[in-house]
């Protein structure tokens, strides 16, 4: 059975914990008839937490819509707002289509972006081939990284004036 449910978040840091619990409780109910491994809810929690942080810290607006969609053996968590465009999208014109471009690297992780179209970027991570870890160089901002690693697919779309981050988790 396909399901969809939306929630409105007020972009306040003080609301993060209660809002996250509300969404997770709803998600547990929606997934009750779907087969999934034990990691799915943990990964969904990581993703929801980071998307909420992103809303509070970077959206530049007062309202964000979160939507869960379960269909075709996948769970999609989408965050949409009318706020600030992701800065990386301003550089999309310089990115080659369908070619991975390194966004950040710190010895532990490499985060890449791919321009899928003029309105859509996708993110993924690779472990560095030559692992040289210098603690002092480790990044302290890792929200996008966590989502990219937890999700099976993670995209950012800008269809003016709407920003949408979308994380997809395979149920099987």
């Amino acid at each position, binding site marked *: 059975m396909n399901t969809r449910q939306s929630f409105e978040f007020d972009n306040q*840091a003080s609301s993060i914990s209660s809002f996250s619990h509300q969404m997770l409780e709803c998600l547990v109910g929606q997934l009750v008839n779907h087969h999934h491994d034990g990691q799915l809810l943990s990964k969904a929690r990581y993703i929801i*937490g980071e998307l909420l942080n992103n809303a509070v810290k970077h959206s530049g607006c007062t309202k964000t819509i979160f939507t869960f969609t379960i269909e075709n053996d996948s769970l999609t968590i989408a965050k949409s707002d009318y706020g600030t465009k992701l800065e990386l999208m301003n550089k999309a014109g310089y990115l080659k289509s369908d070619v991975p471009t390194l966004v950040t690297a710190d010895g532990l*992780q490499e985060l890449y972006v791919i321009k899928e179209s003029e309105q859509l970027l996708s993110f993924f991570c690779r472990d560095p081939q030559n692992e040289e870890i210098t603690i002092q160089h480790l990044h302290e*901002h890792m*929200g996008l*990284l966590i989502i990219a690693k937890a999700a099976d697919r993670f995209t950012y779309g800008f269809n003016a004036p709407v920003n949408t981050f979308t994380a997809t988790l395979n149920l099987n």
Partner: protein
Amino acid sequence: MLKIVNEHPQYIVAKVDIGEANLTHSDQFKTELVSLLNYKQRNVWLNMEQVTYVDSSFLGALVAGLKYALGAGDDLVLLGLQKDVHDLLKLIRLDKVFKIYADEQAATVALNQ
């Protein structure tokens, strides 16, 4: 947020006294951690058994604390991570830079070898 529960000549054990370690706690936690490292000038072992969830901002504060500790010639050790918290550290490979043990006893055995 950080409560000292045990003091040794080589290290301090401090309990992280929150359940969900998120954006609303990370700045204060980082301030308290750096103050503790400054004040005690020795390794800090963080007992995190009460913490059920961490987000990127709190992990960022932990990384900042680790950098500060190592820069001062000390270390930051994590104890008692719950499964979801430990799994997140493994997911983003921070388990490769933090020393992580089940409890103070396990850390004592491992680090004294």
